[in-house]
Protein backbone atom coordinates (compact mmCIF):
# COMPACT_ATOMS: atom_id res chain seq x y z
CA UNK A 1 0.00 0.00 0.00
CA UNK A 2 1.26 3.49 -0.85
CA UNK A 3 2.33 5.56 2.18
CA UNK A 4 1.02 9.11 2.36
CA UNK A 5 3.27 12.13 2.71
CA UNK A 6 1.37 13.40 5.69
CA UNK A 7 -0.92 11.28 7.85
CA UNK A 8 -2.15 14.31 9.81
CA UNK A 9 -3.71 16.22 6.87
CA UNK A 10 -7.17 15.65 5.40
CA UNK A 11 -7.68 12.33 3.62
CA UNK A 12 -9.18 14.22 0.68
CA UNK A 13 -8.55 17.87 -0.05
CA UNK A 14 -9.58 19.81 -3.16
CA UNK A 15 -8.71 23.44 -3.79
CA UNK A 16 -10.49 25.48 -6.46
CA UNK A 17 -11.03 22.32 -8.48
CA UNK A 18 -12.43 22.97 -11.95
CA UNK A 19 -13.44 20.77 -14.84
CA UNK A 20 -14.56 22.28 -18.08
CA UNK A 21 -15.66 20.19 -21.03
CA UNK A 22 -15.23 21.40 -24.59
CA UNK A 23 -18.34 23.17 -25.83
CA UNK A 24 -19.94 22.48 -22.47
CA UNK A 25 -20.51 24.25 -19.19
CA UNK A 26 -18.15 24.10 -16.23
CA UNK A 27 -19.18 20.73 -14.82
CA UNK A 28 -17.21 21.50 -11.66
CA UNK A 29 -16.67 25.15 -10.92
CA UNK A 30 -13.94 25.83 -8.38
CA UNK A 31 -14.89 23.60 -5.47
CA UNK A 32 -13.06 23.30 -2.15
CA UNK A 33 -13.42 20.11 -0.14
CA UNK A 34 -11.65 18.80 2.94
CA UNK A 35 -12.54 15.32 4.21
CA UNK A 36 -10.95 14.07 7.43
CA UNK A 37 -9.61 10.57 7.91
CA UNK A 38 -12.35 8.14 8.94
CA UNK A 39 -15.13 10.51 7.96
CA UNK A 40 -18.11 9.66 5.75
CA UNK A 41 -18.56 12.65 3.47
CA UNK A 42 -21.84 12.80 1.57
CA UNK A 43 -21.74 14.68 -1.72
CA UNK A 44 -25.36 15.50 -2.41
CA UNK A 45 -26.84 16.97 -5.54
CA UNK A 46 -29.23 16.38 -8.43
CA UNK A 47 -28.29 14.67 -11.72
CA UNK A 48 -25.76 16.71 -13.66
CA UNK A 49 -24.68 18.76 -10.64
CA UNK A 50 -21.02 17.73 -11.00
CA UNK A 51 -20.84 14.90 -8.46
CA UNK A 52 -19.51 12.17 -10.77
CA UNK A 53 -17.11 14.55 -12.53
CA UNK A 54 -15.64 15.42 -9.12
CA UNK A 55 -15.25 11.73 -8.30
CA UNK A 56 -13.59 11.04 -11.66
CA UNK A 57 -11.07 13.81 -10.97
CA UNK A 58 -10.38 12.70 -7.41
CA UNK A 59 -9.90 9.09 -8.54
CA UNK A 60 -7.44 10.25 -11.27
CA UNK A 61 -9.66 9.13 -14.15
CA UNK A 62 -10.17 12.68 -15.42
CA UNK A 63 -7.61 15.49 -15.33
CA UNK A 64 -8.83 18.74 -13.77
CA UNK A 65 -8.90 21.85 -15.95
CA UNK A 66 -7.71 23.97 -13.02
CA UNK A 67 -7.17 23.74 -9.30
CA UNK A 68 -5.55 20.94 -7.36
CA UNK A 69 -6.39 18.09 -5.04
CA UNK A 70 -4.71 15.54 -2.84
CA UNK A 71 -6.10 12.15 -1.94
CA UNK A 72 -4.41 10.15 0.81
CA UNK A 73 -1.76 12.85 0.88
CA UNK A 74 -0.89 12.39 -2.80
CA UNK A 75 -1.40 14.90 -5.58
CA UNK A 76 -4.00 13.63 -8.08
CA UNK A 77 -2.05 14.98 -11.05
CA UNK A 78 1.57 14.32 -10.11
CA UNK A 79 1.24 11.20 -7.96
CA UNK A 80 -1.71 9.50 -9.58
CA UNK A 81 -0.35 5.94 -9.23
CA UNK A 82 -0.01 6.42 -5.45
CA UNK A 83 -3.52 7.92 -5.31
CA UNK A 84 -4.94 4.87 -7.08
CA UNK A 85 -3.09 2.54 -4.71
CA UNK A 86 -4.65 4.36 -1.73
CA UNK A 87 -8.24 4.31 -2.93
CA UNK A 88 -11.01 1.92 -3.78
CA UNK A 89 -13.81 3.09 -6.04
CA UNK A 90 -17.23 1.83 -7.01
CA UNK A 91 -18.20 4.13 -9.84
CA UNK A 92 -21.68 4.90 -11.13
CA UNK A 93 -23.37 1.81 -12.61
CA UNK A 94 -21.39 -1.23 -11.55
CA UNK A 95 -19.09 -1.99 -14.49
CA UNK A 96 -18.94 -5.77 -14.39
CA UNK A 97 -18.38 -8.48 -16.98
CA UNK A 98 -21.64 -10.40 -17.29
CA UNK A 99 -19.80 -13.52 -18.50
CA UNK A 100 -17.48 -13.84 -15.50
CA UNK A 101 -18.49 -15.13 -12.08
CA UNK A 102 -18.22 -13.05 -8.92
CA UNK A 103 -15.21 -15.08 -7.78
CA UNK A 104 -13.45 -14.61 -11.14
CA UNK A 105 -13.97 -10.84 -10.91
CA UNK A 106 -12.39 -10.74 -7.48
CA UNK A 107 -9.46 -12.93 -8.51
CA UNK A 108 -8.78 -10.79 -11.57
CA UNK A 109 -8.91 -7.65 -9.44
CA UNK A 110 -6.63 -9.22 -6.81
CA UNK A 111 -4.08 -10.15 -9.48
CA UNK A 112 -4.12 -6.73 -11.12
CA UNK A 113 -3.90 -5.00 -7.72
CA UNK A 114 -0.66 -6.87 -7.10
CA UNK A 115 -1.73 -9.11 -4.20
CA UNK A 116 0.70 -11.99 -3.65
CA UNK A 117 -0.52 -15.17 -5.37
CA UNK A 118 -1.22 -17.06 -2.11
CA UNK A 119 -3.26 -14.13 -0.70
CA UNK A 120 -5.58 -13.78 -3.72
CA UNK A 121 -7.79 -16.80 -3.04
CA UNK A 122 -7.92 -16.00 0.67
CA UNK A 123 -8.87 -12.33 0.09
CA UNK A 124 -11.46 -13.33 -2.53
CA UNK A 125 -13.16 -15.66 -0.05
CA UNK A 126 -13.04 -13.06 2.74
CA UNK A 127 -14.74 -10.44 0.59
CA UNK A 128 -17.33 -12.84 -0.81
CA UNK A 129 -18.34 -13.69 2.74
CA UNK A 130 -18.32 -10.07 3.86
CA UNK A 131 -20.68 -8.90 1.13
CA UNK A 132 -22.84 -12.02 1.38
CA UNK A 133 -22.07 -13.45 -2.03
CA UNK A 134 -20.48 -16.76 -1.02
CA UNK A 135 -23.34 -18.82 -2.39
CA UNK A 136 -23.51 -16.90 -5.64
CA UNK A 137 -19.72 -16.69 -6.03
CA UNK A 138 -19.52 -19.18 -8.89
CA UNK A 139 -22.53 -17.89 -10.78
CA UNK A 140 -22.12 -15.58 -13.75
CA UNK A 141 -22.63 -11.95 -12.87
CA UNK A 142 -25.15 -11.57 -15.72
CA UNK A 143 -27.65 -13.41 -13.51
CA UNK A 144 -27.08 -11.23 -10.41
CA UNK A 145 -29.69 -8.80 -9.13
CA UNK A 146 -28.92 -5.07 -8.96
CA UNK A 147 -28.17 -5.35 -5.24
CA UNK A 148 -25.79 -8.28 -5.74
CA UNK A 149 -23.94 -6.39 -8.47
CA UNK A 150 -23.54 -3.39 -6.20
CA UNK A 151 -22.24 -5.59 -3.38
CA UNK A 152 -19.74 -7.22 -5.74
CA UNK A 153 -18.73 -3.77 -6.95
CA UNK A 154 -18.07 -2.76 -3.35
CA UNK A 155 -16.06 -5.93 -2.71
CA UNK A 156 -13.95 -5.23 -5.82
CA UNK A 157 -13.19 -1.75 -4.52
CA UNK A 158 -11.96 -3.25 -1.24
CA UNK A 159 -9.67 -5.97 -2.65
CA UNK A 160 -6.39 -4.15 -1.96
CA UNK A 161 -7.53 -2.84 1.45
CA UNK A 162 -7.63 0.85 0.53
CA UNK A 163 -7.76 3.61 3.16
CA UNK A 164 -10.16 5.76 1.19
CA UNK A 165 -13.32 4.62 -0.56
CA UNK A 166 -15.20 6.46 -3.29
CA UNK A 167 -18.80 5.40 -3.86
CA UNK A 168 -20.59 7.10 -6.74
CA UNK A 169 -24.34 6.78 -6.24
CA UNK A 170 -23.97 3.27 -4.80
CA UNK A 171 -27.65 2.67 -4.13
CA UNK A 172 -29.29 4.18 -7.22
CA UNK A 173 -31.92 1.76 -8.48
CA UNK A 174 -31.71 -0.58 -5.49
CA UNK A 175 -34.68 -1.89 -3.51
CA UNK A 176 -34.96 -0.67 0.12
CA UNK A 177 -33.59 -3.92 1.55
CA UNK A 178 -30.46 -3.89 -0.62
CA UNK A 179 -30.02 -0.19 0.09
CA UNK A 180 -30.14 -0.76 3.85
CA UNK A 181 -27.63 -3.63 3.59
CA UNK A 182 -25.20 -1.44 1.67
CA UNK A 183 -25.60 1.44 4.14
CA UNK A 184 -24.82 -0.96 6.97
CA UNK A 185 -21.62 -2.13 5.28
CA UNK A 186 -20.47 1.42 4.53
CA UNK A 187 -21.07 2.44 8.14
CA UNK A 188 -19.16 -0.62 9.34
CA UNK A 189 -16.19 0.22 7.11
CA UNK A 190 -15.94 3.72 8.54
CA UNK A 191 -16.65 2.74 12.15
CA UNK A 192 -14.63 -0.50 12.45
CA UNK A 193 -11.88 0.02 9.90
CA UNK A 194 -11.48 3.78 10.07
CA UNK A 195 -11.97 4.04 6.33
CA UNK A 196 -12.63 7.46 4.82
CA UNK A 197 -15.70 7.33 2.59
CA UNK A 198 -16.58 9.84 -0.12
CA UNK A 199 -20.13 9.08 -1.14
CA UNK A 200 -22.13 10.79 -3.85
CA UNK A 201 -25.87 10.53 -3.75
CA UNK A 202 -29.03 12.17 -4.94
CA UNK A 203 -31.02 10.66 -2.08
CA UNK A 204 -31.57 12.98 0.87
CA UNK A 205 -32.26 10.18 3.31
CA UNK A 206 -29.04 8.43 2.29
CA UNK A 207 -26.93 11.49 2.98
CA UNK A 208 -28.83 12.12 6.20
CA UNK A 209 -28.48 8.55 7.44
CA UNK A 210 -24.87 7.90 6.48
CA UNK A 211 -22.83 11.05 6.25
CA UNK A 212 -20.92 12.70 9.08
CA UNK A 213 -20.77 15.80 6.90
CA UNK A 214 -22.52 16.78 3.71
CA UNK A 215 -21.50 18.96 0.81
CA UNK A 216 -24.39 20.09 -1.38
CA UNK A 217 -23.37 20.66 -4.98
CA UNK A 218 -25.49 22.38 -7.60
CA UNK A 219 -24.43 23.45 -11.07
CA UNK A 220 -20.80 22.69 -10.31
CA UNK A 221 -20.59 24.76 -7.10
CA UNK A 222 -20.79 23.74 -3.47
CA UNK A 223 -23.73 25.69 -2.11
CA UNK A 224 -23.69 24.38 1.47
CA UNK A 225 -21.51 22.22 3.67
CA UNK A 226 -21.71 20.94 7.22
CA UNK A 227 -23.12 18.21 9.42
CA UNK A 228 -26.73 17.28 8.55
CA UNK A 229 -27.91 18.71 11.90
CA UNK A 230 -26.05 22.01 11.43
CA UNK A 231 -27.25 22.43 7.86
CA UNK A 232 -30.83 21.90 8.94
CA UNK A 233 -30.46 24.21 11.93
CA UNK A 234 -28.92 26.86 9.67
CA UNK A 235 -31.92 27.23 7.46
CA UNK A 236 -34.68 27.39 10.00
CA UNK A 237 -36.33 26.39 13.20
CA UNK A 238 -38.61 23.42 13.83
CA UNK A 239 -42.37 23.81 13.62
CA UNK A 240 -45.32 22.29 15.46
CA UNK A 241 -48.45 21.18 13.65
CA UNK A 242 -51.54 20.68 15.85
CA UNK A 243 -54.88 19.21 14.80
CA UNK A 244 -57.73 19.78 17.29
CA UNK A 245 -60.13 16.98 18.12
CA UNK A 246 -63.08 19.36 17.48
CA UNK A 247 -63.11 21.49 14.31
CA UNK A 248 -64.85 24.29 16.22
CA UNK A 249 -61.67 24.75 18.28
CA UNK A 250 -59.58 25.82 15.25
CA UNK A 251 -60.03 29.54 16.03
CA UNK A 252 -59.05 29.16 19.68
CA UNK A 253 -56.10 26.96 18.70
CA UNK A 254 -54.85 29.64 16.30
CA UNK A 255 -55.10 32.31 19.01
CA UNK A 256 -53.21 30.18 21.55
CA UNK A 257 -50.43 29.26 19.10
CA UNK A 258 -50.04 32.90 18.04
CA UNK A 259 -48.49 33.35 21.47
CA UNK A 260 -45.48 31.34 20.24
CA UNK A 261 -45.12 32.83 16.75
CA UNK A 262 -47.20 33.56 13.69
CA UNK A 263 -49.53 30.58 13.22
CA UNK A 264 -50.81 29.32 9.87
CA UNK A 265 -54.00 27.38 9.32
CA UNK A 266 -53.54 24.29 7.10
CA UNK A 267 -56.04 22.93 4.59
CA UNK A 268 -56.24 19.64 6.53
CA UNK A 269 -57.78 21.21 9.64
CA UNK A 270 -54.53 21.81 11.45
CA UNK A 271 -52.61 24.86 12.66
CA UNK A 272 -48.81 25.18 12.34
CA UNK A 273 -46.47 27.51 14.14
CA UNK A 274 -42.69 28.00 13.71
CA UNK A 275 -40.65 27.78 16.90
CA UNK A 276 -37.80 30.31 16.56
CA UNK A 277 -36.52 29.32 19.97
CA UNK A 278 -36.34 25.66 19.04
CA UNK A 279 -38.20 22.62 20.27
CA UNK A 280 -37.89 23.69 23.94
CA UNK A 281 -41.17 25.59 23.47
CA UNK A 282 -43.01 22.33 22.84
CA UNK A 283 -43.63 21.59 26.54
CA UNK A 284 -45.06 25.08 27.08
CA UNK A 285 -47.41 24.64 24.07
CA UNK A 286 -48.74 21.40 25.55
CA UNK A 287 -49.29 23.13 28.94
CA UNK A 288 -51.15 26.08 27.34
CA UNK A 289 -53.42 23.79 25.30
CA UNK A 290 -54.15 21.67 28.37
CA UNK A 291 -54.90 24.65 30.63
CA UNK A 292 -57.41 25.91 28.03
CA UNK A 293 -59.08 22.48 27.89
CA UNK A 294 -58.37 22.18 24.18
CA UNK A 295 -58.49 18.52 23.18
CA UNK A 296 -55.89 17.60 20.56
CA UNK A 297 -56.18 14.86 17.93
CA UNK A 298 -52.53 15.02 16.74
CA UNK A 299 -49.47 17.09 17.58
CA UNK A 300 -46.39 16.80 15.36
CA UNK A 301 -42.96 18.33 15.61
CA UNK A 302 -41.39 18.92 12.17
CA UNK A 303 -37.62 19.28 11.92
CA UNK A 304 -36.26 20.98 8.78
CA UNK A 305 -35.13 18.40 6.21
CA UNK A 306 -32.15 18.39 3.85
CA UNK A 307 -34.68 19.06 1.12
CA UNK A 308 -35.51 22.31 2.93
CA UNK A 309 -31.77 23.04 3.02
CA UNK A 310 -31.46 22.41 -0.73
CA UNK A 311 -34.52 24.53 -1.40
CA UNK A 312 -33.17 27.38 0.73
CA UNK A 313 -29.75 27.31 -0.95
CA UNK A 314 -30.79 26.83 -4.58
CA UNK A 315 -34.42 27.90 -4.73
CA UNK A 316 -35.38 24.47 -6.05
CA UNK A 317 -36.46 21.12 -4.61
CA UNK A 318 -33.80 18.39 -4.92
CA UNK A 319 -36.20 15.87 -6.46
CA UNK A 320 -36.36 16.71 -10.15
CA UNK A 321 -33.77 19.49 -9.87
CA UNK A 322 -31.50 17.80 -12.34
CA UNK A 323 -34.12 17.41 -15.01
Amino acid at each position, binding site marked *: *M*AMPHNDQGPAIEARELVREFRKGPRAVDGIDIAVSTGEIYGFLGPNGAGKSTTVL*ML*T*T*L*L*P*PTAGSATVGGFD*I*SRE*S*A*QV*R*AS*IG*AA*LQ*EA*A*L*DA*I*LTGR*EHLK*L*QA*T*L*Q*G*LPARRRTERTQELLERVGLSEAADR*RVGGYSGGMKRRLDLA*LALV*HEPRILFLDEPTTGLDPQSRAALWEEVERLARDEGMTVFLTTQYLEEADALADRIGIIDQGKIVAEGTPARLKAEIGSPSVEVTPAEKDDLGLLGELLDGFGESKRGSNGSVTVQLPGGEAALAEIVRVLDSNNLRVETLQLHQPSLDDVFLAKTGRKLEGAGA
Partner: protein
Amino acid sequence: MVAQTSLFEQVGAVARRSAVGAFRQRALLFFPMLFPLILFAINGSALSKVTEIPGFPTHSYRAFLLAMPFVQGAMFVSINAGTSLARDVETGFLNRLALTPLRSEAMLLGQLGGALVLGTVQAIVYLLVGIATGVTFASGVGGVLVLLLLSITISFAFATLGGLLALRLGSGEAIQGIFPLLFVTLFLSSSSLPRNLIKAEWFKEVATYNPVSYLLEGLRSLVIQGWNAQALAKGFGFSIALATICLLLARPAMKSRLVRT
Protein backbone atom coordinates in the same frame (compact mmCIF):
# COMPACT_ATOMS: atom_id res chain seq x y z
CA MET B 1 5.84 2.08 -3.62
CA VAL B 2 2.79 0.79 -5.50
CA ALA B 3 2.34 -3.01 -5.54
CA GLN B 4 2.39 -4.32 -9.08
CA THR B 5 2.39 -7.74 -10.70
CA SER B 6 4.75 -8.48 -13.58
CA LEU B 7 3.77 -7.58 -17.14
CA PHE B 8 3.64 -11.31 -17.91
CA GLU B 9 1.22 -11.99 -15.05
CA GLN B 10 -0.95 -9.01 -16.01
CA VAL B 11 -1.12 -10.18 -19.64
CA GLY B 12 -1.96 -13.70 -18.43
CA ALA B 13 -4.79 -12.46 -16.17
CA VAL B 14 -6.39 -10.32 -18.90
CA ALA B 15 -5.91 -13.04 -21.53
CA ARG B 16 -7.54 -15.62 -19.27
CA ARG B 17 -10.54 -13.37 -18.81
CA SER B 18 -10.73 -12.73 -22.54
CA ALA B 19 -10.49 -16.45 -23.42
CA VAL B 20 -13.03 -17.46 -20.77
CA GLY B 21 -15.40 -14.82 -22.13
CA ALA B 22 -14.97 -16.06 -25.69
CA PHE B 23 -15.51 -19.73 -24.82
CA ARG B 24 -18.54 -19.07 -22.60
CA GLN B 25 -20.38 -17.27 -25.37
CA ARG B 26 -20.81 -20.45 -27.39
CA ALA B 27 -22.94 -18.84 -30.07
CA LEU B 28 -20.16 -16.35 -30.77
CA LEU B 29 -17.65 -19.18 -30.90
CA PHE B 30 -19.60 -21.80 -32.80
CA PHE B 31 -21.38 -19.89 -35.59
CA PRO B 32 -18.40 -17.83 -36.77
CA MET B 33 -16.44 -21.08 -36.89
CA LEU B 34 -19.20 -22.87 -38.77
CA PHE B 35 -19.76 -20.24 -41.45
CA PRO B 36 -16.34 -20.65 -43.17
CA LEU B 37 -16.85 -24.42 -43.08
CA ILE B 38 -20.22 -24.13 -44.81
CA LEU B 39 -18.66 -22.00 -47.54
CA PHE B 40 -15.80 -24.50 -47.78
CA ALA B 41 -18.24 -27.38 -48.17
CA ILE B 42 -20.42 -25.61 -50.77
CA ASN B 43 -17.63 -24.13 -52.89
CA GLY B 44 -15.44 -27.21 -52.54
CA SER B 45 -18.16 -29.34 -54.02
CA ALA B 46 -19.90 -26.94 -56.45
CA LEU B 47 -16.75 -25.46 -57.98
CA SER B 48 -14.66 -28.63 -58.14
CA LYS B 49 -14.60 -28.44 -61.98
CA VAL B 50 -12.47 -25.30 -61.69
CA THR B 51 -9.44 -27.58 -61.38
CA GLU B 52 -9.93 -28.51 -65.06
CA ILE B 53 -8.90 -24.98 -66.13
CA PRO B 54 -5.50 -25.33 -67.78
CA GLY B 55 -2.75 -24.21 -65.45
CA PHE B 56 -4.76 -24.77 -62.25
CA PRO B 57 -2.13 -25.70 -59.64
CA THR B 58 -3.88 -28.75 -58.13
CA HIS B 59 -6.43 -31.46 -58.97
CA SER B 60 -8.23 -30.98 -55.62
CA TYR B 61 -10.25 -27.82 -55.34
CA ARG B 62 -10.76 -28.54 -51.63
CA ALA B 63 -6.99 -28.48 -51.16
CA PHE B 64 -6.90 -25.13 -52.98
CA LEU B 65 -9.81 -23.75 -51.01
CA LEU B 66 -8.69 -24.88 -47.53
CA ALA B 67 -6.73 -21.66 -46.90
CA MET B 68 -9.95 -19.63 -47.11
CA PRO B 69 -11.59 -20.80 -43.83
CA PHE B 70 -8.37 -20.05 -41.96
CA VAL B 71 -8.37 -16.41 -43.13
CA GLN B 72 -12.14 -16.07 -42.79
CA GLY B 73 -11.93 -17.46 -39.23
CA ALA B 74 -9.16 -14.97 -38.45
CA MET B 75 -11.43 -12.16 -39.62
CA PHE B 76 -14.15 -13.38 -37.24
CA VAL B 77 -11.54 -13.40 -34.47
CA SER B 78 -10.88 -9.72 -35.21
CA ILE B 79 -14.55 -8.93 -34.71
CA ASN B 80 -14.62 -10.92 -31.48
CA ALA B 81 -11.55 -9.15 -30.12
CA GLY B 82 -12.85 -5.78 -31.26
CA THR B 83 -16.37 -6.07 -29.91
CA SER B 84 -15.27 -7.40 -26.52
CA LEU B 85 -12.80 -4.53 -26.10
CA ALA B 86 -15.40 -2.01 -27.28
CA ARG B 87 -17.84 -3.48 -24.74
CA ASP B 88 -15.29 -2.83 -22.00
CA VAL B 89 -15.08 0.79 -23.14
CA GLU B 90 -18.86 1.14 -23.28
CA THR B 91 -19.64 -0.51 -19.94
CA GLY B 92 -16.90 1.30 -18.02
CA PHE B 93 -15.05 -1.96 -17.28
CA LEU B 94 -11.96 -0.31 -18.76
CA ASN B 95 -12.28 2.44 -16.11
CA ARG B 96 -12.31 -0.26 -13.43
CA LEU B 97 -9.10 -1.68 -14.88
CA ALA B 98 -7.63 1.83 -15.15
CA LEU B 99 -7.89 2.14 -11.37
CA THR B 100 -5.54 -0.83 -10.93
CA PRO B 101 -1.80 -0.70 -11.68
CA LEU B 102 -2.50 -2.47 -15.01
CA ARG B 103 -0.11 -1.41 -17.78
CA SER B 104 -1.79 -0.36 -21.02
CA GLU B 105 0.40 -2.81 -22.99
CA ALA B 106 -0.78 -5.64 -20.74
CA MET B 107 -4.41 -4.74 -21.35
CA LEU B 108 -3.94 -4.74 -25.10
CA LEU B 109 -1.80 -7.87 -25.29
CA GLY B 110 -4.02 -9.71 -22.82
CA GLN B 111 -7.11 -8.94 -24.84
CA LEU B 112 -5.31 -10.18 -27.96
CA GLY B 113 -4.09 -13.24 -26.06
CA GLY B 114 -7.68 -14.36 -25.67
CA ALA B 115 -8.23 -13.88 -29.39
CA LEU B 116 -5.11 -15.92 -30.04
CA VAL B 117 -6.51 -18.86 -28.07
CA LEU B 118 -9.72 -18.60 -30.08
CA GLY B 119 -7.75 -18.43 -33.34
CA THR B 120 -5.75 -21.51 -32.40
CA VAL B 121 -8.86 -23.55 -31.67
CA GLN B 122 -10.40 -22.48 -34.97
CA ALA B 123 -7.22 -23.34 -36.90
CA ILE B 124 -7.12 -26.83 -35.40
CA VAL B 125 -10.79 -27.40 -36.29
CA TYR B 126 -10.24 -26.26 -39.91
CA LEU B 127 -7.17 -28.43 -40.19
CA LEU B 128 -9.03 -31.49 -38.93
CA VAL B 129 -11.94 -30.79 -41.29
CA GLY B 130 -9.46 -30.50 -44.17
CA ILE B 131 -7.85 -33.82 -43.29
CA ALA B 132 -11.27 -35.46 -42.83
CA THR B 133 -12.36 -34.33 -46.31
CA GLY B 134 -9.32 -35.90 -47.94
CA VAL B 135 -6.98 -32.92 -48.25
CA THR B 136 -3.32 -33.95 -48.17
CA PHE B 137 -0.45 -31.64 -47.30
CA ALA B 138 2.37 -31.38 -49.83
CA SER B 139 4.72 -30.03 -47.14
CA GLY B 140 4.18 -33.00 -44.79
CA VAL B 141 3.83 -32.95 -41.02
CA GLY B 142 6.29 -30.08 -40.65
CA GLY B 143 4.19 -28.08 -43.10
CA VAL B 144 1.06 -28.69 -41.05
CA LEU B 145 2.77 -27.20 -38.00
CA VAL B 146 3.95 -24.19 -40.02
CA LEU B 147 0.41 -23.82 -41.40
CA LEU B 148 -0.92 -23.69 -37.84
CA LEU B 149 1.72 -21.16 -36.90
CA LEU B 150 0.94 -18.94 -39.90
CA SER B 151 -2.78 -19.24 -39.23
CA ILE B 152 -2.30 -18.18 -35.60
CA THR B 153 -0.11 -15.27 -36.75
CA ILE B 154 -2.85 -14.17 -39.16
CA SER B 155 -5.47 -14.44 -36.39
CA PHE B 156 -3.28 -12.33 -34.13
CA ALA B 157 -2.84 -9.73 -36.89
CA PHE B 158 -6.59 -9.44 -37.47
CA ALA B 159 -7.20 -9.36 -33.72
CA THR B 160 -4.87 -6.34 -33.44
CA LEU B 161 -6.92 -4.70 -36.20
CA GLY B 162 -10.12 -5.42 -34.24
CA GLY B 163 -8.50 -4.07 -31.07
CA LEU B 164 -7.38 -0.90 -32.84
CA LEU B 165 -10.85 -0.29 -34.27
CA ALA B 166 -12.41 -0.86 -30.85
CA LEU B 167 -10.11 1.63 -29.18
CA ARG B 168 -10.60 4.21 -31.89
CA LEU B 169 -14.36 3.81 -32.27
CA GLY B 170 -15.29 2.66 -28.75
CA SER B 171 -18.47 1.02 -30.02
CA GLY B 172 -19.26 -2.64 -30.64
CA GLU B 173 -21.92 -1.72 -33.21
CA ALA B 174 -19.39 0.30 -35.20
CA ILE B 175 -17.01 -2.67 -35.27
CA GLN B 176 -19.76 -4.97 -36.53
CA GLY B 177 -20.67 -2.38 -39.13
CA ILE B 178 -17.12 -2.43 -40.46
CA PHE B 179 -16.95 -6.22 -40.64
CA PRO B 180 -18.64 -6.59 -44.07
CA LEU B 181 -15.97 -4.30 -45.51
CA LEU B 182 -13.29 -6.59 -44.13
CA PHE B 183 -15.07 -9.52 -45.71
CA VAL B 184 -15.03 -7.82 -49.11
CA THR B 185 -11.22 -7.91 -49.03
CA LEU B 186 -11.43 -11.69 -48.81
CA PHE B 187 -13.54 -11.98 -51.95
CA LEU B 188 -11.40 -9.44 -53.81
CA SER B 189 -8.37 -11.67 -53.37
CA SER B 190 -7.07 -14.96 -54.76
CA SER B 191 -9.43 -16.85 -52.45
CA SER B 192 -11.29 -18.71 -55.23
CA LEU B 193 -8.81 -18.68 -58.11
CA PRO B 194 -5.06 -18.31 -58.50
CA ARG B 195 -4.25 -14.73 -59.50
CA ASN B 196 -2.77 -15.78 -62.87
CA LEU B 197 -6.06 -17.42 -63.86
CA ILE B 198 -8.30 -14.43 -63.04
CA LYS B 199 -9.58 -13.16 -66.38
CA ALA B 200 -10.98 -9.76 -65.39
CA GLU B 201 -8.00 -7.42 -65.40
CA TRP B 202 -9.37 -5.06 -62.73
CA PHE B 203 -10.02 -8.01 -60.40
CA LYS B 204 -6.54 -9.39 -61.02
CA GLU B 205 -5.08 -5.95 -60.27
CA VAL B 206 -7.06 -5.56 -57.04
CA ALA B 207 -6.17 -9.11 -55.94
CA THR B 208 -2.48 -8.38 -56.59
CA TYR B 209 -2.53 -5.27 -54.40
CA ASN B 210 -4.71 -6.93 -51.77
CA PRO B 211 -2.52 -8.26 -48.90
CA VAL B 212 -5.18 -10.86 -48.10
CA SER B 213 -4.11 -12.69 -51.32
CA TYR B 214 -0.65 -13.20 -49.84
CA LEU B 215 -2.00 -14.49 -46.54
CA LEU B 216 -4.05 -17.06 -48.47
CA GLU B 217 -1.19 -17.95 -50.80
CA GLY B 218 1.20 -18.47 -47.89
CA LEU B 219 -1.20 -20.93 -46.26
CA ARG B 220 -2.12 -22.54 -49.56
CA SER B 221 1.47 -23.10 -50.62
CA LEU B 222 1.96 -25.50 -47.69
CA VAL B 223 -1.06 -27.54 -48.80
CA ILE B 224 -0.62 -27.77 -52.55
CA GLN B 225 2.98 -26.86 -53.35
CA GLY B 226 5.23 -27.99 -50.51
CA TRP B 227 7.85 -25.56 -49.22
CA ASN B 228 7.65 -22.22 -51.04
CA ALA B 229 9.89 -19.78 -49.19
CA GLN B 230 8.65 -16.73 -51.07
CA ALA B 231 4.97 -17.44 -50.45
CA LEU B 232 5.65 -18.14 -46.78
CA ALA B 233 7.76 -14.99 -46.39
CA LYS B 234 4.96 -12.91 -47.87
CA GLY B 235 2.32 -14.62 -45.73
CA PHE B 236 4.23 -14.14 -42.50
CA GLY B 237 5.53 -10.74 -43.61
CA PHE B 238 2.13 -9.22 -44.37
CA SER B 239 0.54 -10.60 -41.22
CA ILE B 240 3.41 -9.43 -39.00
CA ALA B 241 3.36 -6.01 -40.74
CA LEU B 242 -0.41 -5.69 -40.15
CA ALA B 243 -0.01 -6.66 -36.49
CA THR B 244 2.91 -4.25 -36.01
CA ILE B 245 1.13 -1.29 -37.60
CA CYS B 246 -2.08 -1.95 -35.65
CA LEU B 247 -0.19 -2.39 -32.35
CA LEU B 248 1.76 0.82 -32.90
CA LEU B 249 -1.46 2.71 -33.57
CA ALA B 250 -3.38 0.94 -30.81
CA ARG B 251 -0.88 1.68 -28.05
CA PRO B 252 -1.54 5.44 -27.83
CA ALA B 253 -5.26 4.78 -28.32
CA MET B 254 -5.22 2.39 -25.35
CA LYS B 255 -3.29 4.91 -23.26
CA SER B 256 -5.92 7.54 -23.91
CA ARG B 257 -8.75 5.07 -23.25
CA LEU B 258 -7.09 3.98 -20.00
CA VAL B 259 -7.07 7.68 -19.21
CA ARG B 260 -5.34 8.45 -15.96
CA THR B 261 -3.89 11.73 -14.77
